[in-house]
């Protein structure tokens, strides 16, 4: 009798708190990229090489309430990338419509997956504390991220302040530009984010965010090459440290004809001397019930990092890169989409569907077409 009572007490003590699934969401995105960049050797000698690749990106997310004070979010994004590292196997050969071969067999079709868990503890009515950890796996790359954040509401929830810090640790193989594996390498990324969201009127809300990031270690992918003045190619050489700062402002305005206008602006600087300005405008219009139409435009301008070159001196020993992503360019994105939220009475309170398309193009010869669709169940 006593043993049975003790067993019942222990079972009660270790029983998990009740939980309830709040939402399940899935999304699939397809990217089709075309263009040329000086970091790629997949093309004739002395010219920029092919950057053609495709990415298939499925994602899944489950959010559950655990007990009275905890919300758990589990999120699993994946990427299937063709030609993740186009390089010397196509050197001095004509550019074709096929994705270029890769520097290593792992990159001909690279499958990458992440397990990301975010636990939010509701400390009181106005304060949340969040803990995040994530593991990323792909061949030949592993990554671990962890962080903590605090969100505090003030002035009857008119003001919300959010602060969080993240640390990301990466381990990966180092390659020579001809595909030979050299050794293991690593990279550290430390990040601080501050965000203030403020209600400005019954129809307007604004936010200002700062993000500061310090990266150290091997900051390139190690297989990008640099076109040299004599027509040959050499290895990219990057500093082992990078300080990055971004300040962003966002505004959302309710429109009286059942619409919303959202604008944002970001200024970015880093100590590799890149300076960037990014602006975006989005208009959302409710057509009827839960059906919404969305149109967006984004413009981005950046200067090149100070050691970017299209024809490096073969005898120089300083930093150098031919990476087109670090060059001076203007990028634009035009896009649109449809969102449909179908409210229901029952176990599932909302069914969510959305379809979207974006076209990204920039002045240094890179174009990406993006198609995405999402489905969600809210309980």
């Amino acid at each position, binding site marked *: 009798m006593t043993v049975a009572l003790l067993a019942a007490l222990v079972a009660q003590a270790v029983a998990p708190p009740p939980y309830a699934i709040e939402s399940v969401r899935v999304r699939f995105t397809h990217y089709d990229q075309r263009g040329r960049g000086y970091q790629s050797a997949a093309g004739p000698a002395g010219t920029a090489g092919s950057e053609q690749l495709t990415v298939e990106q499925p994602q899944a997310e489950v959010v559950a309430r655990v007990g009275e004070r905890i919300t758990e979010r589990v999120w699993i994004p994946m990427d299937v990338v063709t030609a993740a590292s186009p390089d010397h196997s196509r050197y001095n050969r004509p550019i074709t419509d096929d994705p270029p071969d890769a520097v290593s067999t792992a990159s001909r079709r690279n499958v*990458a997956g992440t397990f990301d868990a975010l636990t939010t503890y509701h400390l009181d009515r106005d304060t949340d504390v969040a803990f995040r950890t994530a593991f990323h796996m792909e061949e030949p790359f592993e990554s671990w991220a962890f962080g903590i954040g605090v969100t505090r509401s003030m002035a009857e929830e008119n003001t919300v302040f959010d602060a969080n810090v993240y640390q990301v640790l990466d381990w990966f193989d180092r390659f020579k530009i001809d595909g030979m594996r050299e050794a293991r390498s690593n990279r550290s990324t430390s990040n601080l984010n501050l965000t203030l969201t403020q209600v400005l009127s019954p129809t307007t809300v604004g936010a200002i965010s700062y993000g500061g990031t310090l990266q150290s270690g091997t900051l390139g992918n190690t297989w990008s090459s640099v076109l040299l003045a004599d027509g040959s190619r050499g290895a990219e050489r990057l500093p082992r440290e990078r300080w990055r700062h971004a300040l962003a402002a966002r505004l959302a305005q309710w429109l009286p004809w059942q619409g919303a206008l959202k604008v944002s602006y970001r200024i970015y600087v880093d100590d590799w001397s890149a300076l960037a300005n990014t602006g975006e405008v989005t208009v959302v219009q409710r057509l009827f019930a839960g059906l919404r139409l969305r149109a967006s435009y984004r413009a981005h301008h950046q200067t090149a990092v100070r050691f970017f070159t299209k024809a490096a001196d073969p005898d120089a020993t300083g930093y150098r890169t031919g990476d087109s992503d670090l060059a001076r360019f203007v990028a634009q994105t035009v896009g649109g989409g449809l969102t449909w939220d179908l409210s229901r009475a029952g176990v599932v309170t909302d069914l969510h569907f959305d379809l979207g398309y974006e076209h990204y193009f920039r002045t240094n010869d890179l174009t990406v077409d993006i198609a995405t669709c999402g489905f969600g169940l809210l309980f």
Partner: protein
Amino acid sequence: MSRIRPYGRGLWRAVGLALLAAALGAVVLGGSGACVVVPQNRRKHLADPMMRFEEDALDAHRRQKFYTTREAAAGGDGMPAGGGCGCQ
């Protein structure tokens, strides 16, 4: 080679710290109650899903990752500017 320090690095750090100071100033201003207070019963438009800065977390992620891996600039969106998958 690895000991060569990029020219002008201090200037860019100073500009970055100025951005941080601007953000902290906004935080102090907001936290001091200097801004308007709209009562909850007048915030129904703000509660509409259309008014969220990011309507869908998964869509926001794929956009953040796309731009982080294709442009020199990143950050300001609550996530690290680099690190992890994407080789940057």
